[in-house]
């Protein structure tokens, strides 16, 4: 071939900025994460350097090639398959000794290998000095220092890769000298071999790395604060509460602005369409159905999602999530669940479908199933706006301040974590019996998050994502519900008929038929439940115009809502069947329709029980 394309495998421990190197080299916007196993499948990207085309294969982050886990198998199989022309091992300069263990294992299996010592900026901040020349001569392979997040050293890295594939150095001598292993039992052999690798890594690090005694002082101090017995849990609640408060307070202004302007356009748009000669029914379907729903999703649902996501990503970027897992692990252990389930649960706060996919980081099939089945018990980003709207309007003095609403939302999330633990416990005591398997959790060094980059990228990504969903899901759903509300065989609209049919069940749960309809029609995406509900109410004739969030309470109260209804609606928003995307992901991840049905039935059952109980108990109250 005239135009050769080189395949480069990208290997490294978790949390070393491997995905950042990947993104920087390929200009791909892959979401990077700070927990082990974020790259659960191999991502591929391409770049061209000095006319040479490269394909970069991002292997899962692993500590070793020897262990039996799924991630190690993927990495090992790819490296040993000979598909790669070169392997790039990314290592963390602040923790080089442990990172060298994987490098040595890779060097034993493949050639050529290029070492990228990443996070040099973080190492410099800690006063850690890495002698790259010493590493180069001791290992006999190219070694490049980078600070990938700032783009430092990437050109040199590309040059080193080109050199490695075009003019590879001679294979270095075996990187590890093993002691005589004859006559030892398999286990003794394994131990001796592992010990030899670790000792060699230690010797290399001793030669090339200078770590001042107080290098990790700040990490230790922060950990003592953020994971201590006294302050660990309060700090966690405070941080989450702060994120929620910023979300609610920050979303008020753009939300009001957008809803004022977008919803005010409905009238002119209708006149414009009518003026263009469209039949009145079609005009009405397009404005009151399609436009109104999309305007609602954009103005009311989008702003909180846009603020929460970057904030959450910043915490993740700073390395806080592993600390959450560390703090909560004992509870998950007691419930027979895997320690990494708290990580997948946190991912679920962003998006349940992502959380379910993230469950691949759990090796034991039993514990992975528990994590998958319980993931949608924590509310995702798409459910926050509904919760915020309800809590603000009914319990926090109608938007008097973001603080009470944030506190209530925090309470709702704590409740959902509690239910997650309970259901996990129930599952591991019944259909998924077993003891929690062993696990280890690295607490990586804290890092200064790339604030600008995170905010801009997640704003762009999230806006596009939500707008895409609004177009693909909210618009057709708006049309559908308009049709249901306006097709009236026998004088009663289909919507009213469905609502009436579901009403007894809804009443039992402290809701009504229309709310249940909205949840059913909102199956494609959680963020359209609220707009659909309003559409249902508005088309039912009690009010014909809707002018923004301020009127929410009026519309709901006019349809028989009390604060009891709001409590039940909050509970059902927290606990009902997962959205379509999550269900599809569960189906794909478990490969089983039965588990998918169970994953939908479990939260639904919880929601039904909680709503019915709350309804019963609230009925005894005199107010």
């Amino acid at each position, binding site marked *: 071939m005239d135009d050769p394309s080189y395949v480069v495998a990208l290997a490294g421990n978790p949390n070393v900025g491997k995905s950042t190197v990947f993104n920087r080299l390929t200009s791909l916007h892959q979401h990077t994460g700070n927990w082990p196993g974020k790259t659960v499948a191999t991502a591929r990207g391409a770049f061209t350097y000095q006319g040479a085309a490269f394909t970069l294969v991002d292997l899962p982050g692993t*500590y*070793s090639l*020897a*262990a*039996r*886990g799924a991630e190690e198998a993927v990495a090992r199989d790819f490296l040993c398959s000979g598909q790669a022309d070169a392997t790039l091992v990314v290592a963390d300069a*602040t*923790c*080089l*000794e*442990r990172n060298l*263990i*994987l490098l040595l294992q890779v060097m034993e299996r493949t050639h050529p290998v290029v070492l990228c010592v990443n996070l040099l900026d973080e190492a410099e901040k800690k006063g850690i000095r890495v002698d790259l020349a010493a590493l180069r001569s001791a290992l006999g392979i190219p070694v490049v220092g980078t600070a990938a997040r700032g783009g430092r050293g990437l050109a040199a890295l590309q040059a080193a890769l080109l050199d490695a594939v075009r003019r590879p150095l001679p294979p270095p001598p075996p990187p590890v000298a093993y002691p005589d292993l004859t006559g030892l039992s398999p*286990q003794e052999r*394994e*131990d001796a071999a*592992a*010990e030899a690798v*670790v*000792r060699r*890594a*230690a010797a290399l*690090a001793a030669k090339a790395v200078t*770590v001042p005694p107080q290098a*990790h002082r700040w*990490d*230790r101090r922060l*950990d*003592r604060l953020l*994971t*201590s*017995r006294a302050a*660990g*849990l309060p700090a966690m609640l405070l941080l989450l509460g702060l994120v929620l408060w910023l979300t609610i307070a920050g979303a008020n202004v753009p939300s009001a602005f957008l809803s004022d302007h977008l919803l005010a356009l409905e009238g002119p748009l209708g006149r414009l369409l009518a003026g263009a000669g469209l039949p009145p029914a079609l005009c009405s379907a397009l404005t009151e159905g399609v436009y109104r729903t999309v305007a609602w999703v954009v103005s009311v649902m989008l702003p909180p999602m846009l603020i929460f996501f970057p904030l959450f990503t910043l915490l993740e970027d700073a390395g806080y999530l592993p600390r959450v897992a*560390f*703090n909560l*692990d*004992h*509870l998950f*252990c007691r419930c027979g669940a895997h*320690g990494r389930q708290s990580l997948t649960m946190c991912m679920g706060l962003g998006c349940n479908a992502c959380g379910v996919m993230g469950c691949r980081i759990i*090796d034991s099939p039993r514990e992975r199933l528990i994590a998958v089945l319980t993931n949608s018990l924590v509310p995702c980003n798409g459910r926050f706006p509904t919760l915020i709207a309800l809590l603000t309007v009914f319990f926090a003095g109608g938007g008097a301040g973001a603080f009470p609403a944030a506190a209530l939302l925090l309470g709702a999330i704590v409740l959902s974590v509690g239910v997650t633990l309970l259901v996990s416990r129930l599952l591991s005591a019944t259909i998924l019996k077993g003891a929690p398997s*062993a*696990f*280890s*959790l*690295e*607490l*990586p060094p804290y890092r200064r998050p790339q604030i600008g980059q995170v905010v801009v990228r997640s704003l762009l990504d999230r806006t596009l994502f939500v707008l895409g969903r609004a177009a693909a899901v909210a618009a057709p759903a708006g049309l559908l519900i308009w049709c249901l509300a306006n097709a009236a065989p026998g004088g009663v609209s289909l919507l009213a008929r469905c609502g009436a049919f579901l009403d007894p069940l809804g009443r039992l749960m402290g809701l009504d038929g229309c709310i249940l309809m909205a949840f059913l029609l909102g199956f494609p995406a959680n963020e359209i439940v609220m707009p659909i509900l309003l559409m249902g109410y508005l088309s039912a004739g009690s009010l014909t115009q809707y002018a923004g969030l301020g009127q929410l309470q009026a519309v709901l109260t006019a349809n028989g809502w009390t604060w009891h209804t709001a409590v039940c609606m909050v509970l059902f928003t927290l606990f009902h069947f997962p959205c379509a995307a999550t269900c599809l992901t569960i189906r794909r991840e478990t490969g089983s329709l039965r588990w998918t049905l169970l994953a939908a039935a479990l939260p639904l059952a919880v929601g039904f029980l909680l709503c019915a109980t709350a309804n019963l108990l609230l009925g005894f109250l005199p107010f």
Partner: protein
Amino acid sequence: MTTGYQTLDRLPVGAVSTVAALTCGGDLRRRLLDLGFVPGSTVQALQAAPWGDPVAYAVRGAVIALRRRDASGISIYGK
């Protein structure tokens, strides 16, 4: 030189010791080896989680949290 052995889960927070041997088996053993818990490695118990379990250990320049049950599969020098 040494006065005896104990298991890693008994190492008090703040204390430093040296790994003597791994007594656990299976996948956990392999993973611990790969994280640098090999005979001769220096370990320090840094911090217990709010409920006292798991405990974070400094080993080979990294911080690794282990549940006490799993840490008891590592034998260290000390009384």
